């Protein structure tokens, strides 16, 4: 008999570290996402009782995989009579072993790193983030199948009811099987686009956690943790992609400030007000190393550049010692690889530091005229701050009110209300 609390801890640990691996391996046996998910869940449930009786296995993930796959094979055998076709397209097993595919009609699949043995988790991530699926479905499937987050928790994170989220995932899984979205590595020429989708999902998870769209707290640390975990897995699995390093660095350096983004009352703190001594220097140092590599040689990508900007902020000893000219240069480069109005708005903040608020305001007004950010609360918030610095109080007040009208997050609302109240004071 093993102590119950040890067993529970082992199952929790195996859930955190092994879930994706177990699901991916089971998908291959089940050839159906729903069945795979069900079998994996049963295997984790069975682990609690079996490990208490027989002891914790030396390799818990392998035990769980064997158990889940056995259930899947049994279920497939039982169902075979009723099935006319395989709902999910899985490449024959032999391809996993020798890494070559005689039947591949188009081009060779991107080679997985290391000893050439494909990591099934990577296939699972690419399946969940397939561009034929809607972005909401991509993120939900990734959280459920790769990270093992429950449907109820995913629904809560994205502010929809559990039945809505369950229906969204069912729809996505149905599309995967009806349209035959394959469970395989993307081809070499597809990889950049497909990887981009994966990075986009991870980044969205993180930013959703970093600035929760509504609710009592600005941070949803569970989502941030999942995103960081995914970025690490990806960096392990695809070790030579610079944008993967860039994304991991961006998440690390942003997350390093997690503890200081809000004060003990949950009030949002500006960068200038945060206690830099409490930033996670280990994470900042790790990010720095990744950024140096990601910026080397060819034209750097958007995540590497965003990470470099965040890193300059993180490494400045004080807000007024920030290297704003360098940040502005990086924003110029970022805007050229990623011409987004959000980037242009953030760049305006750096412009204000280098060239003064009047020049920055002109740029913000240009972004505003473009119209694409009409519902984006940070645009009037940035504008309000610049107007305040220019002494145009009445216009600043109107802009703060406009920002408040677009913000549902409580911490951000309180922050803006505070700024608005400060306007009246001398």
């Amino acid at each position: 008999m093993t102590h119950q609390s040890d067993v529970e801890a082992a199952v929790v640990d195996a859930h955190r570290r092994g879930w994706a691996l177990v699901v991916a391996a089971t998908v291959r046996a089940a050839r159906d996402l729903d069945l795979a998910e069900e079998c994996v869940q049963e295997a984790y449930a069975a682990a609690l009782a079996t490990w208490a009786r027989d002891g914790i296995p030396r390799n818990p993930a392998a035990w769980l995989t064997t158990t889940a796959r056995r259930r899947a094979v049994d279920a497939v055998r039982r169902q075979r009579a009723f099935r006319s076709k395989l709902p999910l397209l899985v490449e024959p097993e032999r391809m996993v072993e020798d890494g070559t595919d005689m039947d591949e009609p188009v081009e060779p699949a991107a080679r997985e790193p290391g000893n050439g043995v494909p990591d099934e988790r990577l296939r699972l991530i690419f399946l969940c983030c397939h561009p034929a699926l809607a972005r909401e479905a991509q993120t939900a499937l990734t959280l459920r199948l790769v990270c093992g987050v429950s449907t109820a928790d995913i629904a809560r994170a994205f502010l929809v009811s559990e039945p809505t989220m369950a229906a969204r995932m069912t729809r996505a899984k149905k599309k995967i099987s009806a349209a035959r979205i394959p469970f395989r590595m993307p081809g070499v020429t597809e990889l950049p686009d497909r990887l981009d989708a994966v990075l986009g999902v991870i980044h969205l998870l993180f930013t959703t956690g970093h600035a929760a769209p509504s609710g009592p707290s600005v941070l949803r640390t569970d989502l941030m943790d999942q995103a960081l975990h995914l970025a690490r897995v990806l960096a392990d699995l695809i070790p030579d992609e610079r944008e993967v390093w860039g994304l991991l660095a961006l998440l690390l350096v942003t997350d390093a400030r997690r503890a200081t983004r809000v004060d003990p009352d949950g009030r949002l703190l500006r960068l200038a007000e945060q206690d830099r001594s409490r930033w996670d220097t280990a994470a900042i140092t790790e990010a720095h190393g990744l950024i140096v590599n990601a910026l080397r040689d060819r034209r750097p990508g958007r995540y590497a550049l965003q990470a470099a900007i965040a890193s300059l902020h993180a490494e400045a000893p004080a807000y007024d010692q920030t290297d704003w000219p360098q940040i502005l240069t990086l924003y110029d480069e970022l805007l050229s690889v990623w011409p987004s109005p959000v980037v242009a708005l953030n760049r305006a903040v750096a412009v204000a530091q280098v060239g003064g608020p009047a020049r920055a305001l002109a740029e913000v007004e240009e972004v505003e005229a473009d119209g694409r950010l009409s519902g984006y609360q940070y645009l009037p918030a940035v504008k309000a701050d610049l107007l305040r610095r220019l002494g145009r109080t009445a216009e600043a007040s109107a802009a703060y009110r406009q920002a408040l009208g677009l913000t549902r997050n409580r911490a951000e609302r309180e922050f803006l209300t505070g700024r608005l109240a400060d306007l009246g004071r001398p």
Partner: protein
Amino acid sequence: MAQYAILLFAKAPADAADLTPREREAHQRHGEDVEKFGGRMLTAFALQPSTTATSIRGDTITDGPFVEAKEVVAGFYVIEAPDLDAALEIARRNPATWQGGGVEVRPVDSGFVGAPPVEG
């Protein structure tokens, strides 16, 4: 192998007579892409312009295409391909994608093609 219908969308009224010789040739050559990227062409149709379309909703008959939009269906073809990635690899090479329109790829659920009419 699975079957996919690829629907071509072009700027209304999607009149084949408006195509330049170069565009027309590109459409004819697209058949080679299907084979080259692991698929098989099962059937293909180009339609008359949408100005010739008549729509019926409920019991009301109206002139024009069913959905009012800037782009309308210009034709469709059905291919056989190993999976969605292969079908997309083929469909993205359809000339409609660079001629101001685009394509929609839909898995086929079931279908029937009649015998060709007897000449005479």
